[in-house]
């Protein structure tokens, strides 16, 4: 009977406070916004304040005094992180003003991207992706964030389909009546001609 009692006590699950939760993004910097938490606790004292994205992010290193040798690139898409803090020599991004080369020590820039080819140069190897617009942020500490909606390596593109799409959208533009249709057809033409030049050029 006493043995039963000890067995019962042993089996009872002890919910230990999880120090390290099983998760992929660990809260690195618990530098939550102090003003927010204070204001919250004043107005709603019974509830814990919600967390904010800052507490889930790794803090970025500050601007170094000398130009670093490598550029750290984060290339993210909605469904995957293509490159995460990868150190490269140079990237060439298709900004709306044309192809822009980014080297370590580039001035801080925010640029919008148009459909085109993104190439990542690391030593002697070069990887090319076709991206469908997005944004690139270049920070002063030689970090580059490229956010695109879609990106495919160039070998996955089919030339015939590109030609077909281009013809289709050109015909759509000529037969478009409203501004909206014209704009949509124009976007299709832009993307397909960029695809075309990516495959040929």
């Amino acid at each position, binding site marked *: *009977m006493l043995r039963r009692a000890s067995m019962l006590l042993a089996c009872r699950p002890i919910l230990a406070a999880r120090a390290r939760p*099983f998760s*992929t993004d660990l809260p690195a910097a618990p530098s939550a916004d102090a003003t927010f938490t204070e204001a919250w606790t004043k*107005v709603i004292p019974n*509830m814990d304040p919600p*967390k*904010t994205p800052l507490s889930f*992010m790794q803090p970025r290193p500050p601007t170094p005094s000398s130009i670093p040798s490598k550029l750290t690139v984060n290339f993210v898409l909605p469904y995957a*992180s293509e490159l995460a803090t990868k150190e490269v020599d140079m990237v060439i991004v298709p900004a709306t003003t044309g192809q822009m080369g980014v080297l370590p020590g580039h001035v801080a820039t925010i640029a919008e991207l148009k459909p085109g080819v993104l190439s990542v140069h690391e030593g002697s190897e070069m990887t090319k992706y076709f991206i469908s617009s997005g944004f690139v942020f270049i920070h002063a500490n030689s970090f580059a964030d490229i*956010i695109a909606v879609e990106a495919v390596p160039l070998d996955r593109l089919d030339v015939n389909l590109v030609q077909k799409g281009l013809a289709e959208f050109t015909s759509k533009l000529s037969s478009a009546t409203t501004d909206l249709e014209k704009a949509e057809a124009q976007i299709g033409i832009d993307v397909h001609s960029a695809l075309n030049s990516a495959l040929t050029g």
Partner: protein
Amino acid sequence: MAMAALRREGRRFAPLISPRPISAVRSSPIVPTHEYEGPIGVRYISTQVVRNRMKSVKNIQKITKAMKMVAASKLRAVQTKAENSRGLWQPFTALLGDLPSVDVKKNVVVTISSDKGLCGGINSTSVKISKGIYKLNSGPEKETKYVILGEKAKAQLIRDSKKDIELIITELQKNPLSYTQVSVLADEILKNVEYDALRIVFNKFHSVVSFVPTVSTVLSPEIVERESESGGKLGELDSYEVEGGETKGEILQNLAEFQFSCVMFNAVLENACSEQGARMSAMDSSSRNAGDMLDRLTLTYNRTRQASITTELIEIISGASALEG
């Protein structure tokens, strides 16, 4: 042995399915045994009631176990998507920082919740946080509006904040979540709602048992300009060259919209993960409770059955002995 049995009976868990009111008099803690008078004054103790109860509890246990498996498989599917999308909002926070305590006139709270129930307390937490933010940002000349995604938050918020709700969107998860769908949604919201700051409230998925309520703030381009000019956290924004477009304002506008759709995409995925995880743990605890109830009912059933056999035997024997002598 008797003490062990008594101790087992003494253990009280709060069952998920509320039993009939416990009648304190009888020996069985759950259900009163059904006694009624037979034709010649013979007493029958019916085990039918207990048996019915056992059948229904067993069915419920099967159902909740199945729901847990379904939630587990759905969780696996959404979890990979959510983890892959976690990199999406980080560049924006790195550039624009995070200012949840920004002071603006027009706040819009976007509450993300689930459509289906039985998922624990995550929807109530989201709604409580949204109401908290509303209260936090209330003041003279300030107004806060709600945009609701999901049936559960709609049911809770429509009760007392009906006039503050701008947009209600339901049936989000009918088709598998994709960025195109969320960007169309974001477009709708941005077109129809005037905002200075958008605060997205959702449950961030940490693990199968832990969901953290989170609020992400997206500022409109005018407020970004104002904050960067006044210095402080966004003061460095001015040092960034803006390439392309005719004016800086146009790029910032596109940036704000893109940021909103990216943050929404991540938020919706994380909330879906949290919903499945919460449903898993709710259904798991419910099946465990059902199992416990079933054990207790089985004991009651056996006791009742043995008692009725004993009663019959006693009556027969006493009847026989009365005839003899």
